[in-house]
């Protein structure tokens, strides 16, 4: 098992390099350069060349990449061209906000989704099932940013229960996390329902009933325990989809975070910031998927044996 985890961890390294290469080359396809925006009026071509050399932008692309990646792994992600501060500082300032939002959203996705899924599966083909599934479907279909705006209108403006925007205590996190998490909850609910109904028809459930185990214990201890494994797999695979909403939600709620930092940088063509935030967001999702995969292979004894 530990060997398996170790091997999977090693696999993250090539993935990291592939991502950096892809992001780096894509960024350099972006038209328009930040140097022009730095040059004041009346500056000469020589000024421009001096700046190009200063930022190393005169070198061939692969040299630029090697230089950049060497510094990057050493923790030096360059200077923000617009903000004039180290990108690493900006990332480490913003990362916790995004992580907090992401984790809470994920928790909401998981618990709300599982609950809806169980209710639906247990009350299969009743009005309760239909209502839960419509809610789940709405979760999947409504974009996070719109949900965020509507939640602001209801809970912040009409009811004044929670703050409209900004960051700080938990009260600032609730509405954003619900907006991001509900989409994932819909997904989780739908998978939970299908997978529980599949398990429900298996032979071992009949034996559990025959053993006199109560309906509740069978549903929670056995059916859910078995049904949760495909849910974990898909949760890992669709982590990017579930957390994608966080980017727009940070804008809606005016929260600091990697997402809003990325968007601002994109508009200002601030390459180093865009690069670093894309790499961090992508790696966060991939590491998340990696962790769910480990959880999955630990949760299922059959899979666990495969990696012994």
């Amino acid at each position, binding site marked *: 098992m530990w060997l398996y985890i170790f091997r999977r961890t090693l696999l993250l390294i090539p993935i990291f390099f592939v991502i950096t290469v892809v992001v780096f080359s894509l960024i350099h396809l972006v038209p328009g350069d930040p140097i022009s925006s730095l040059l004041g009026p009346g500056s000469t071509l020589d000024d421009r060349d001096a700046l190009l050399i200063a930022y190393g932008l005169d070198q061939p692309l692969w040299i630029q990449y090697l230089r950049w990646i060497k510094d990057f792994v050493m923790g030096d992600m360059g200077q923000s061209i617009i903000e004039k501060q180290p990108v690493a500082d900006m990332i480490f300032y913003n990362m916790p906000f995004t992580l907090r939002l992401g984790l809470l959203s994920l928790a909401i996705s998981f618990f709300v989704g599982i609950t809806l899924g169980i209710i639906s599966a247990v009350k299969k083909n009743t009005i309760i099932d239909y209502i839960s599934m419509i809610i789940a479907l709405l979760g999947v*279909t409504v*974009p996070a940013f719109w949900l965020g*705006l509507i939640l602001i209108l209801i809970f912040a403006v009409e009811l004044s229960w929670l703050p409209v925007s900004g960051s700080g205590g938990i009260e600032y996190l609730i509405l954003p996390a619900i907006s991001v998490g509900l989409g994932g909850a819909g997904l989780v609910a739908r998978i939970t329902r299908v997978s529980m109904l599949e398990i429900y028809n298996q032979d071992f459930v009949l034996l559990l009933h025959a053993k006199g185990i109560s309906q509740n214990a069978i549903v929670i201890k056995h059916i859910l325990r078995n049904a949760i494994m495909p849910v974990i797999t898909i949760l890992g695979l669709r982590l990017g989809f579930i957390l994608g909403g966080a980017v*727009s939600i940070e804008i809606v709620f005016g929260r600091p975070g990697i997402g809003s930092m990325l968007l601002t940088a994109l508009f200002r063509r601030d390459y180093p910031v865009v690069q670093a935030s894309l790499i961090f967001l992508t790696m966060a*999702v991939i590491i998340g998927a990696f962790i769910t995969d480990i959880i999955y292979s630990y949760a299922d004894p059959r899979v666990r044996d495969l990696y012994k």
Partner: protein
Amino acid sequence: MSIDYQKTKKHKSPLKVLLKRLAQNKMGLAGVVVILILIFVAAFAHILEPYSYKLQDISNMSQPPSLTHLLGTDEFGRDLLSRIIRGARISFTVGVVSVAMSVLIGLVVGGLAGYFGGKVDLILTSFADLTWSMPSILIALLLVAIIGPGLESVVLAIGLSYWAQYARLIRGQILSLKTSVYIEATRSLGASDFVILVKHLIPNSISPVIVAATIGVGNAIVLEATLGFLGMGAQPPTPSWGAMMSSGTAYLFISPWVIVFPGIAMMITVLGFNLFGDALVDIMDVKNRESNL
């Protein structure tokens, strides 16, 4: 002498069977109705809109819904209903065209990976998996930044960020079909790789792709709106639902209807595609769980 089996045995056309099953599926039928209405509105938007979608009326800025403006007006006094009707055309086009593009890329990548296996499969599949695990919004954002904002680049960006799902589906299907007896038979009759892939394998693995694509249109519409909302989509005054909501955010507390109604329009649309897709899973008897994500 050849015997025509079609004549000796009476066959129901598969399309008729599907339609019959669809007619029994209430949710699916609701989805179809929503999609048909959307197509109708998109096609006849220029006739259906009560006002011109770009007609500004400074004396009627940010008016709440009333009899003259059923859904109210925006910050330029433009009729919201007319803009939502126009927006339907854009959303529908973006959704369908970008998904068509994704499916095409997915068919090529997944088809090649599944059919040739080995190193080709390994490289293509890892690339597809990497793309699939990345938030599509990030890929799309980056691509729009490269190509520059605008409707065409949004279509391109969405198309390029969603293909991995279809590639995975097609690959899985082909892997399971490849070793089937009838493909072996076709090969032994001397059919070329290309013929087997294009004439036999892909058509026989297409049903989960159709299901996924139906739901995918809904997802693409949401992604378009999100890009539009972030200012990376269609540029004003183009009445894309996302762009409308984006400019409406500044007036959220003055005229919330500018945000609420386009959102509801989008919700119903996407719900329609999802309900239809879910129904397709049942009536086409698609076993693959991944196709209804």
